């Protein structure tokens, strides 16, 4: 086992040495639509994307049948470690990978999997999530977007909100109401091509000035019947499964930092050190340390869960706990970062502020949504109270 791991580690190292363009070292994933207007990814970025896609390592644990890497969870962890060591990153991401892919692998029919999964693996198709509505946020099952059976197609009318990147996405996975007489049991899961006539997405500007969340309107949108995932009215079950992938995706993204870097580095630069080499502000130093310890423990919790899943056990730690912990740790990180920056952490745009400073400030503002999206902290706590602790309803 350990020997196999060692062998795989060596293979991953060799492959990365041969294939990862050194010019991208320390770079990161660029959402295809978040770049400055007019700019495009470098040739090396596109080359790296193409190589990772061909290897299937953009989604290391998905079955190779659909273009995935076919690796075990442990191998994927080793790959991630080696990529971090090499300064490499996964050039392919997005909701298709984080949420729809795993759900489709479980609930999609053969035709749907063959059609939709390979383009997701290659990062060719961008997906958005049509779940929340103006009247259905935390109470998601109250959604009202109507789906009528018109014989040879479905007809969709309604409005979604907080649809990330809807304005630049190719496809949307959507929850729609197929039965108004029941709540959860009247929801279906539909794949909608965003180019269909009647679909309109309008970006909403957030507190940090970005606008990738959209309002999405559906007006007499015709959707082919083959785009229904699972059965009619099975959507809530599928959505709950997908939300688990979302929680898991959101929490694993958070396992960012190498504990030896990050905040202490920033604090040394902006706050300075005392004669003994410690961060000069004792109170801040304590809170940085406390944060780093939580972050490290959280990273261990994720690793522990992965190891359990790998061994065929249920994870001991509930996904909802991990989502809340991950959001909390990440928000704490952002709070500390802008505190460390002082005046440098108050900028809207330059001059007077470096790009890094502006990014950290904007990131701090944006981080407030970590405990809202993917099911708010309070909704996760409701889930935990009911399902994990068996506490009675009010």
């Amino acid at each position, binding site marked *: 086992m350990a020997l196999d791991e060692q062998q795989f580690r060596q293979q991953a190292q060799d492959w990365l040495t041969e294939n990862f363009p050194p010019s991208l070292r320390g770079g990161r994933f660029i959402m295809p639509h978040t770049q400055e207007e007019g700019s495009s990814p470098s040739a090396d970025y596109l080359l790296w994307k193409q190589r990772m896609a061909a290897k299937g390592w953009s989604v290391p644990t998905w079955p190779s049948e659909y273009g995935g890497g076919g690796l075990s969870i442990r191998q994927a962890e080793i790959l991630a470690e080696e990529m971090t060591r090499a300064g490499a990153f996964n050039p392919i991401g997005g909701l298709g990978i984080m949420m729809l892919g795993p759900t489709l692998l479980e609930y999609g029919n053969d035709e749907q999997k063959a059609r939709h999964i390979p383009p997701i693996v290659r990062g060719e198709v961008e997906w958005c999530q049509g779940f929340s509505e103006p009247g259905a946020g935390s109470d998601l099952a109250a959604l009202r977007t109507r789906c009528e059976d018109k014989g040879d197609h479905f007809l969709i009318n309604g409005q979604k909100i907080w649809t990330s990147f809807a304005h630049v996405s190719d496809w949307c996975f959507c929850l729609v109401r197929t039965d108004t007489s029941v709540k959860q049991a009247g929801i279906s899961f539909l794949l909608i091509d965003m180019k269909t006539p009647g679909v309109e997405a309008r970006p909403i500007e957030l507190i940090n000035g970005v606008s990738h969340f959209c309002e999405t309107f559906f007006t007499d949108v015709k959707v082919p019947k083959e785009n229904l995932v699972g059965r009619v009215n099975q959507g809530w079950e599928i959505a709950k499964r997908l939300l688990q992938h979302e929680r898991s995706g959101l929490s694993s993204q958070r396992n960012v930092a190498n504990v030896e870097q990050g905040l202490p580095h920033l604090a040394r630069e902006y706050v300075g050190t005392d004669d003994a080499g*410690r961060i000069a502000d004792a109170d801040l130093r304590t809170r940085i340390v406390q944060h780093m*310890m939580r972050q490290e*423990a959280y990273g*261990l919790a994720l690793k522990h869960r992965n190891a359990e899943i790998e061994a065929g056990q249920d994870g001991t730690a509930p996904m909802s*706990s991990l989502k809340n*912990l991950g959001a909390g740790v990440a928000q704490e990180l952002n709070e500390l970062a802008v505190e460390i920056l002082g005046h440098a952490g108050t900028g809207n745009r330059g001059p007077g502020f470096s790009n890094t400073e502006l990014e950290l400030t904007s990131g701090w503002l944006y981080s407030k949504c970590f405990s809202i999206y993917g099911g708010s902290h309070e909704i996760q706590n*409701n889930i935990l109270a009911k399902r994990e*602790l068996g506490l009675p*309803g009010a």
Partner: protein
Amino acid sequence: MIVLSEEDVMLKDMANGWTADRAPVPALRALRGQLADTGFDPALYAEMAEMGWPAILIPEEFGGVGMNRVSLGLIAEELGRNLVGSPLVWSAAGAVSALTLGTNQAAKEALLPQIANGSLAAALAIDDENHHRPHTISTTAQKYESGWVLSGAKRAVPDATGVGLLVIAAQLEDTSPALFSCPVDTAGVTLTSLDRIDSRGAADIVLDNVSLGPDALLGQGQDYLDTVLDSVRAILAAEMLGGTAQAFETTVEYMKTRIQFDQPIGSFQALQHRAADMLGEIVLARAAVYGALQAIDAGDADASRQVSLAKAIAGDCFRTMAREMIQIHGGIGMTDEHDAGLYLKRAHVLDHTLGNAAFHRERYARMLDI
């Protein structure tokens, strides 16, 4: 990170069954008041020895089982659930590590088999004063031709009452720290049992020119001492994890049965969310504790940092949970009759044992040069 093996899970289940049956919380209550004299229940410790628990970390050549820290940690976790009073942690992790990590072959051969079969229980005397400062030990050890002479005083040595062997930290003439083995009945050793809030058999110890043989030195050096202490700290963190888990479960059960305003108080969202948040804290503590135990077993270079992580997080977590246990139980939680107070008291004492959360945060910070 490794998942628990089938063997580990069986061991944990066995320990759970045994503590629930033989040493539940009422057993600690029964010993209260007497603990200062008898320290622990020797019959219970003999049962633990029969199950091989003190022998877990002892190599087979010395009569031990040769299992790892994770196994001992799982047992400590279960003992922690029921606040079992015993010298197990100090014997099986403290004295055993002092011996096995040391260089004294004669002492290993003489003492390890006795610790393994439970006939010799040990305590670890580290602190000289009210705070844990293992790098400034005031107890001294002078070397003479005939052996060693120890002088000083040890403060609040945990579970020392009733044991046969003391493992004592003292400073050598070159100022490096060392650990000595000292039979408790050696001339010049005076134990004064303390009546502490956690009802366990701690004692103050005076060392008045205590003469020990040349073989009394078990090992020396800061690294040696730190490694021995870390071995115990990781097990203490596991004990705290167990206490936290039980306090949590008891509280959640109470929330399901306590009726106010014609409904179980557990139906109130304010309480549900506190419980849910607490569950997350326990997730972190468990990850940190198991991580530390495995890091020691694997000989990881950052094992001591992992131990400080575990001790600090488990310490904070247990204290917070014990406070919540009392608050959510309300008035009944303030009574001596209810167990909530026992968990709060034990959480407080354990946090202060071998360095509280603040001590370990600082240690963690220094290890990362922050």
